[in-house]
């Protein structure tokens, strides 16, 4: 009896922590859309949203309310069940992946030993939402978008997986907290420096994995209307939207963890370290994540969309060989104990 109670209590605690992660996450997603419109607005010398609330700060909430009250239209000859479940499949892995992300030293929901490949597994599952949405809609544009997305995600997943292999070889662990701790020392100890090509490949692959500009051929407004979610409206559409942004935040957070030392202070090892010691690690983590998110927005405002065959060429013929070569070099470096990173 007591045992069961205790187990229930543990379960409740876990649920509470899950809420503690997801609620701020969803709020950040909402405000990421606001940030996107503002940033792109300023880049294009516009104001961006500025009507709802002070400086347009209530805009995301207004959008959410609007989407909630819209009708959900289900196309007649669609596969009803899959049509409805597809957005759920898109967002679930994006949220589930956060279980292993360490926000600060020891602040992590599940400190598992295979954190890195768990995250890789979760991000690779996200594509099901897109494929099923495209197929279940029974619309040719949606289907084209889904096919493009499937091929693209599989291609870039390989390159991304290889970059993670490089990271795990350097850190000697699949546990994300240990990966961060292995980067301790100073700004120069972070893995962006020894794994620079992998870092670049990772981030570009991450952009491709999340189907963001300039790799957003799965949506491709100008070619296939809106890709896989043409037929979606109302809340179902909103969930896809949420999933896309949640994924962006996730891959940015991962980039921060694996290449920019996660919650570690950038002033570590310098005379400034004690001066900034009062700032909690989580702040650094959020700032680094924010940097990558800004890059996402910047890309979208700057680059024209890639052509599809170019995307495939880049993924298969450039990134995979580059990562393979670098993995071999990392292997040699690790075996030779090259300081300061691999000693």
């Amino acid at each position, binding site marked *: 009896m007591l045992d069961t109670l205790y187990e229930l209590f543990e379960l409740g605690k876990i649920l509470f922590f899950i809420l503690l992660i997801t609620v701020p996450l969803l709020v950040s997603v909402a405000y990421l859309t606001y940030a996107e419109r503002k940033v792109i607005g300023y880049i294009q010398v516009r104001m961006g949203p500025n009507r709802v609330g002070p400086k347009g700060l209530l805009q995301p909430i207004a959008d959410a309310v609007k989407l909630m009250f819209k009708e959900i239209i289900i196309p007649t000859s669609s596969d009803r069940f899959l049509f409805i479940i597809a957005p759920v499949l898109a967002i679930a892995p994006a949220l589930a992946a956060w279980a292993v992300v360490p926000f600060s030293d020891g602040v992590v929901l599940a400190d598992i*030993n295979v954190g890195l490949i768990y995250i890789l597994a979760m991000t690779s599952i996200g594509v*099901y939402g897109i494929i099923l949405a495209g197929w279940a809609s029974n619309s040719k544009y949606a*289907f084209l978008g889904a*096919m493009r997305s499937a091929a693209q995600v599989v291609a870039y997943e390989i390159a991304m997986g290889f970059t993670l292999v490089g990271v795990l070889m350097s850190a000697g662990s699949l546990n994300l907290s240990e990966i961060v701790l292995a980067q301790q020392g100073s700004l120069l100890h972070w893995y962006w420096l020894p794994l620079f090509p992998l870092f670049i490949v990772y981030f570009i692959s991450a952009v491709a994995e999340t189907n963001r500009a300039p790799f957003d051929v799965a949506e491709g407004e100008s070619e296939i209307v809106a890709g896989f979610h043409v037929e979606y409206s109302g809340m179902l559409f909103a969930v896809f939207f949420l999933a896309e942004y949640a994924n962006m935040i996730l891959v940015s957070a991962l980039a921060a963890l694996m290449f920019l030392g996660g919650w570690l202070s950038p002033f570590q090892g310098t005379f400034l370290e004690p001066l900034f010691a009062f700032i909690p690690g989580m702040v650094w983590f959020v700032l680094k994540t924010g940097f990558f998110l800004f890059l996402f927005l910047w890309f979208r405002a700057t680059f024209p969309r890639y052509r599809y065959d*170019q995307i495939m060429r880049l993924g298969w013929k450039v990134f995979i060989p580059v990562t393979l070569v670098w993995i071999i070099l990392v292997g040699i470096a690790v075996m030779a104990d090259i300081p300061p990173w691999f000693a």
Partner: protein
Amino acid sequence: MTKIIFYLFALILVFAASRVITVRNPVHAALFLVLAFFSSAAVWLLLHAEFLAIALVLVYVGAVMVLFLFVVMMLDINIARTREGFTRYLPVGSFVGVLILVEMVLVVGAWKTDESATLSTVTAPNTESLGNLLYTVYLYPFEIAAAILLVAMVAAIALTMRTKRQTKAQRPEQQVRVRREDRVRLVNMPAEPRD
């Protein structure tokens, strides 16, 4: 608690696996297979085989099944036709099936189960122990398995790639190298007299 979770996932697994072969729509069948993979990964997690569980999700769910769905969705399978002859072959099929089942029951009935077998508890992180095994005891089969994958790849490419370029894909290196002379031809023509 663990028992409840195990039975939950085991039930889902059995249900999904049986739906894979009973459901009519091939896309649904593939999705049930995904569900089956997921539940078996969960069962493995309960056995503390975390690496295998996640690798199953990563490789099979994340990559293999995506490509599988990719192909299945492209196929236009006529469901009615695949069911043709089902009733015709049913008597023979079920007869053979029942026969094999009876034989198996008779044979396996004589099988003593080894009661001493227990769940081995693993202390070392199993990613590490797996890696250790793969590159020592199982090095040889591991390399040969890699050769098999290479052969599969060579075969697939040899059988499908046409050497003559039939695609109209652009070649960036040629586009970059282009000179004015390649595209523009200056022609000297006598002015036509006006009449």
